[in-house]
């Protein structure tokens, strides 16, 4: 049975409940070769889980065309490697996902998604409202930090119109400070985030969750360059991470107070904005 875990979006606990925060990065050559930014810790961790048969499948998103992504149920390291990097959008869960997961060969699954999806998955796991829910298969929920996602068509059009960058040419997008860093086939572009806010999805403006408090593990950019910040929310994940470290998949070090403060501030900021915006529209 699933143990009780008090979960709230509490301004006094902007990161939710957690037991430890790490700065982490990959030590896996395969991941290093491919990763664009960040520490590649998430990829390395899920590869570890697959290769050691701790889980049967990992649900991640892969880039399909332009900036549009698709959900994949990856069952091998190779498949996971093909998904390294960010899909700068929410990739919707579809009925097909349930169909694939209904196979009896898939018993334990790790989900990588955004905070909104972590909330849904946690609810499904704890409070199965449907008999066809795959609750019992949800082994771990990994949430990526998220400051919001763009309304994809509008954003692509804006990049093309303003900077003549086509969606296909975009290699990676990430946030650094108050800049959006867009790596593309012929260089790197830095745009002030404020300039892109107009293209954020409206729904994201009401979203109070930056790190994914409903997840088991949250991952985002660390203020330490080249590292992934990992917020560990339960003992099981902590144990698994250390095992992955022992087996040489990744390296962990406790995050500095500054790194943590930085995420706390961003989380508070997002929460405040969300409640403000929500009170406007309700």
């Amino acid at each position, binding site marked *: 049975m699933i143990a009780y875990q008090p979960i709230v979006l509490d301004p006094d606990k902007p990161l939710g409940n957690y037991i430890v925060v790490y700065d982490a990065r990959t030590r896996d050559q395969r991941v290093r070769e491919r990763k664009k930014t960040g520490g590649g810790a998430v990829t390395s961790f899920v590869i570890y889980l697959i290769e050691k048969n701790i889980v049967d499948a990992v649900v991640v998103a892969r880039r399909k065309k332009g900036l549009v992504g698709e959900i994949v149920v990856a069952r091998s390291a190779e498949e996971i490697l093909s998904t390294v990097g960010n899909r700068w959008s929410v990739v919707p869960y579809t009925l097909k996902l349930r169909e694939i997961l*209904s196979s*009896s060969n898939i018993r334990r699954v790790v989900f990588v998604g955004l905070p909104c999806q972590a909330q849904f998955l946690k609810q499904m796991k704890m409070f199965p409202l449907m*008999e066809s829910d795959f609750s019992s298969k949800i082994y771990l929920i990994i949430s990526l930090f998220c400051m919001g996602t763009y309304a994809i068509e509008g954003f692509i059009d804006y990049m093309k119109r303003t900077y003549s960058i086509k969606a296909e040419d975009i290699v990676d997008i990430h946030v650094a400070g108050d800049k959006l860093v867009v790596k593309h086939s012929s260089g790197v572009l830095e745009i002030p985030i404020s300039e892109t806010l107009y293209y954020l999805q409206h729904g994201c403006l009401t979203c109070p969750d930056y790190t994914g408090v409903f997840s088991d593990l949250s991952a985002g950019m660390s203020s330490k360059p080249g590292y992934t910040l990992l917020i560990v929310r339960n003992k099981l994940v902590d144990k698994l991470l250390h095992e992955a470290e022992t087996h040489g998949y990744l390296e962990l070090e406790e995050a500095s107070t500054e790194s943590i403060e930085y995420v706390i501030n961003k989380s508070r900021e997002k929460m405040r904005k969300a409640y403000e915006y929500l009170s406007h529209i309700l």
Partner: protein
Amino acid sequence: MGFKIFDLQRIGGEAVFLVYGENGFVKKAYFVSRAPVRGFERIVRGKNPVFVINAVMRICGICHSAHGIASAEAIEDAMGISPPVNGRLVRESIGLVNRIQSHLIHLFMLIPDIVIGDSKTKFFIENIRLLDLINKLLAKLGGSPTHPPFIVVGGIARSLSEEVVGEAIDISQKILEHYREFKKSLLEETRDSDKVSLLMDKRANNKLLATHPYYGDRYNIGLDKIHVLRYEDYRKENLPDEIKKTTSLIALYNGEIVECGPRARLALFHDFSGNSLWDIQLARLLEIEISIRRVIDLLKRIEYGEPFSTGVLTYRAGRGVGVYEAPRGTLIHRVVLDTNGRVKEYRIIVPTMFNIPVMESVAEKFPVKYSDLIPRIYDPCIPCSTHIVKFRLN
């Protein structure tokens, strides 16, 4: 003559059995259902057939699939289409799995009567374990263990892969093994039960009605021979208010009382000749085994690459009938579609409507003290029987 009201427990739904007794034996019995009438025939009026199937499945949380299938059959008949072979194979399987599901739920509620001593708990747990497997199987074939969404007009909504069907066959085989063990020890444990002997001693020689051993056959029943009556019209006597409040109707076949359900099916289509009340339960137990074997057989006949659904739906005016052997007996859905393909008229006859007069007449001369066993051995379905309407022909 004193009367006794049994607030029926361990049945699916809200009902009372009211009996008048003389010297401790039943003189007259009345089955009165209390659940409010939700009126599904009215709910579906004016609606698109897609809605109708999802709606009528929710008449009953026990025999959902039976309603879904009868409805799909009726609508297809009205549209002039029929599902492809695979669709029909899976649909029949879904129906049979639902039949087993229903029989097991009934058994769960009957165990305290027929099993004596401490082994009750063991059987409860075994029963729930079997039910879990059956639910898993229905989830695979129908999309969900309750109100399976894959039952659609034209066949089955999903093309099942070889892998899924393989898994379904494995589960079925497991159920068969578990069930054989379970049944054997259950029958041993019930040998000394007083209530079982009481049921064994009671004959029930009513005419039987069934249309098909596994599925349902609209050509094997005379629809014009069915008469549906309000309870007071059937009784033709001055009834106390308590009874008049009943929320169910009565159905007769050829003007006579007929029993439908597991015993009728086995007697008419298999070698089964028992005519005591206990034989009804034995028929149910036997039907579980027969059904699961049939499911395995059906699933093995699926042709991969062939369609599971007709794909083409013609929305046109028409009328149709769906006859299906629900867990409790013959279930009939009739539909009239208007020129937009929407429902103009909808009528449902449920098996419990046939069985209510049977239960009442069989109860006569039974010990008053145990007479609640009579309706319960017939497994009346109250959510269903309260959602029916007077059946007018043409």
